[in-house]
């Protein structure tokens, strides 16, 4: 029953023969039945673009990473987890690079949501388990944190030796991790940040923030070293980071291509997968395949652009999407395209200043001479989600003009205190500056139960009509 499914995920016959026993064991641990596998096949065909071989290969990486995660408890000595909003997979990833036979380092929340959730449609039980515990329904707790808690309560993924908790952006994540420490005995190490940049403090990230951040990361690495029992070298972090940066550049090319193409050659529901591999990180054996898949995808997309092939008709209104699309429900993005509008850009991909697809670190040839912690810090602080709101506003307005979009959809994760209000501020600022249709749409990017496609349809239809009317 696995072969057809794995075939859709880009596995060659010999790869299936070799890898099936582990995959089978992992799927059994996840209680995936033959019906679930069948459902996974159907969802892959319905919501994703499997004509693109690059996408198939990327799905293959997700399945391999899911297998590694689920079996880590029996195959590895130490398990390290990253959580959202992570700045980089490479701090814990360095430990796995140095001792791949002994250490597993991964980011289970996204991985499980994007596989068990988006592909198999089987995550409700995880949210329900979290809700029966400390993450009560109706309190607007974040689905990503609920996933982490629910998975530990149900034993979906192994208990880690350490969670690297990023307390630099929201309140929910570090607090949830504190409870995981107090109630389940999981060791937590934090990377903190004081978000005290004033509106006039930019364009360069200020030194006090960079220094504090860098120090926090160095402390975290010391704690990780202590947990795994060997010293994580700066060389290993650098090696991991350079791989990530190369992948980042490859992704940037894809995103730039999508931003300037009409019609847009692939759906953003698909694009979520290569993009998220940046944060998820991958096991050492999947680093080269990840790059190959991204390069293959780019070539395929270039071909499509040449042929004028895309997910909508040429000339369809182009919109800008802020925040992230759903990680678990690809049907929402599909609906947007079906309603005749094309998403050509994610705001989160455009770094400040000047709407770049990559933060400005200077000459790419000199990357290896830079301090990896400074690179990470600056990259994060120049991303729209982390920069000062005043600069995010400037960047958004500039991007709308530069890419000549017809409308902006401010889609925000309802339980995110960080994003929710900021979306309203951004919309208000944009409306004062540009006369293009906008909509602030409340949704849930992790939990598929409440904001379903049908629930959102009426509002998205209205937005689509607004954009079409405005354009005509």
């Amino acid at each position: 029953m696995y072969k057809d499914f794995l075939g859709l995920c880009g596995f060659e016959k010999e790869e299936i023969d070799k890898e099936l026993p582990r995959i089978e064991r992992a799927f059994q641990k996840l209680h995936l039945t033959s019906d679930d596998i069948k459902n996974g096949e159907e969802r892959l065909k319905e919501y994703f673009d499997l004509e693109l071989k690059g996408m198939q290969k990327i799905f293959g990486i997700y399945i391999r990473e899911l297998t590694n995660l689920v079996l880590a408890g029996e195959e590895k000595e130490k398990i390290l987890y990253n959580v959202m909003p992570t700045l980089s997979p490479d701090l814990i990833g360095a430990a796995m690079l140095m001792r791949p036979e002994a250490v597993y380092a991964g980011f289970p929340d996204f991985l499980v949501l994007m596989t068990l959730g988006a592909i198999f449609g089987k995550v409700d039980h995880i949210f329900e388990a979290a809700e029966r515990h400390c993450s009560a329904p109706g309190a607007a707790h974040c689905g990503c944190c609920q996933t982490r808690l629910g998975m530990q309560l149900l034993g979906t993924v192994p208990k880690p030796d350490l969670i690297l908790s990023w307390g630099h952006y929201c309140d929910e994540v570090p607090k949830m991790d504190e409870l995981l420490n107090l109630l389940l005995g999981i060791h937590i190490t934090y990377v903190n940040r004081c978000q005290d940049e004033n509106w006039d403090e930019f364009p360069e990230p200020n030194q006090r923030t960079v220094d504090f951040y860098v120090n926090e990361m160095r402390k975290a690495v010391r704690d990780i070293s202590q947990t795994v029992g060997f010293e994580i070298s700066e060389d290993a972090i650098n090696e991991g980071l350079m791989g990530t940066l190369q992948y980042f550049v490859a992704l940037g090319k894809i995103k730039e291509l999508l931003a300037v193409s009409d019609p847009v050659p692939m759906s953003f529901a698909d694009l979520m997968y290569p993009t998220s591999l940046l944060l998820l990180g991958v096991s050492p054996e999947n680093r080269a395949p990840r790059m190959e898949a991204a390069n293959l995808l780019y070539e395929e997309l270039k071909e499509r652009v040449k042929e004028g092939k895309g997910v909508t008709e040429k000339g369809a209104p182009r919109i800008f999407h802020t925040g992230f699309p759903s990680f678990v429900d690809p049907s929402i993005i599909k609906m947007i395209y079906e309603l005749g509008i094309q998403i050509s850009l994610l705001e989160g991909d455009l770094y400040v200043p000047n709407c770049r697809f990559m933060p400005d670190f200077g000459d790419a040839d000199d990357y290896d001479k830079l301090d990896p912690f400074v690179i990470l810090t600056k990259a994060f602080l120049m991303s729209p989600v982390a920069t000062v709101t005043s600069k995010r506003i400037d960047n958004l307005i500039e991007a709308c003009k530069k890419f000549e979009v017809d409308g902006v959809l401010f889609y925000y994760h309802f339980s995110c205190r960080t994003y929710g209000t900021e979306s309203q501020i951004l919309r208000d600022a944009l409306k004062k500056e540009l006369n293009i249709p906008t909509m602030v749409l409340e949704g849930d990017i992790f939990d598929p139960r409440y904001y379903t496609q049908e629930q959102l349809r009426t509002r998205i239809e209205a937005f689509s009509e607004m954009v079409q009317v405005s354009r005509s």
Partner: protein
Amino acid sequence: MLKIEELRNSLRKRPGELKRLRSEGKKVVGYFPGDYVPEELIHSAGAIPICFIHGGDPESVEAAHVLVSRFVCPFARAQFGYRVIGEQPYYELLDMLAAPITCQNLRRTADLWNHTTNLDVFRIGVPHAYNSEDGLKYFYNTLIRFREKLEQVTGNRVEEEKLKNSINLYNRLRGLLREISLLRTAQDLAISMRDFVFLNHASYLLDPDLMVNTLDSLLNELKTEGPARSGDGRARILLTGPCLALGDMKILDLVDESGGDVVVEEVCEGLRCYWENVDVKGDQIQNLAVRYLQKRWPAAFMRMSAQPRLENILSLVEDFRVDGVLWYQLKYCETYDFECFYAARKLEEKGVPFIKLESEYDVSDRGPLKTRIEAFIESLTKRRS
């Protein structure tokens, strides 16, 4: 109590007074509560510190929705909503806003003030790993920057001696509030819960010299007069949670009506602010940094705060002879909601009765809250007898 009446009168006149003082060139610095903004610094710069502590009414929350997500805590929504409505003078009479970045709710509220007003908004970085050396160093440097900002806004230099005098003044104010609060460890209450909460709130808005003089007299009055209320048969309650705003009296009213008394308030605008004083020996900014970041009761948005907060609550339960703990939380306050789960479990293990109540500052909250508070107090009273 005459002194309390005098303070009420002063508070009624305070907006007019602020208007006059501003016209005479004084600067008013508003700040968000939570006890991470040293009022002493503002005072020593010759400015008037005014804390944004109003809340409890649905209108301000509703008004904020024009730009605020409905899943932000109602207190934070109100801090923008008052400005939108324009009916609360303290939110109009400002020259600068100091915004400690304690949680995302207030962080975005600071953004809203930036976005919708021309006011100078200065963010105060609050290191969440509050016990770390690096955190303290960062906070120290933040206070240095804050001092420079205040000097720039007021045109006055913050001299070491002036700062020391301001610290002494505020130490005296905190000390008096603490002494009055401690009177409530006795079985019969020298001061009612509403009056004590009023004193606390007034201290954020009124002139500190006036507060000190009045509290001094009041303390003598309280010590010499008989108790304001006999504690016989009434349940003694510890109130804990994120905040108890000026105007959010629903919970206190319901506790009173149901036969209980709140005898200590472990909230942002309560004991956390007056319990500890600032040292005056050595570097004053360092002393302020230590007191405001570390030498205090941590809030739930701090890292690994649940355990020390629980221990603090347990010690208060003993010192104030508390019958039960009332966890009063605002809707969508995520860190307190998580911490509540832990506290409830642990207090149950220790045999301390516990109730969690939630409000979104809506009048419709009252009915369900009343039923639950009545049942809770009834169970406490039975347990006592």
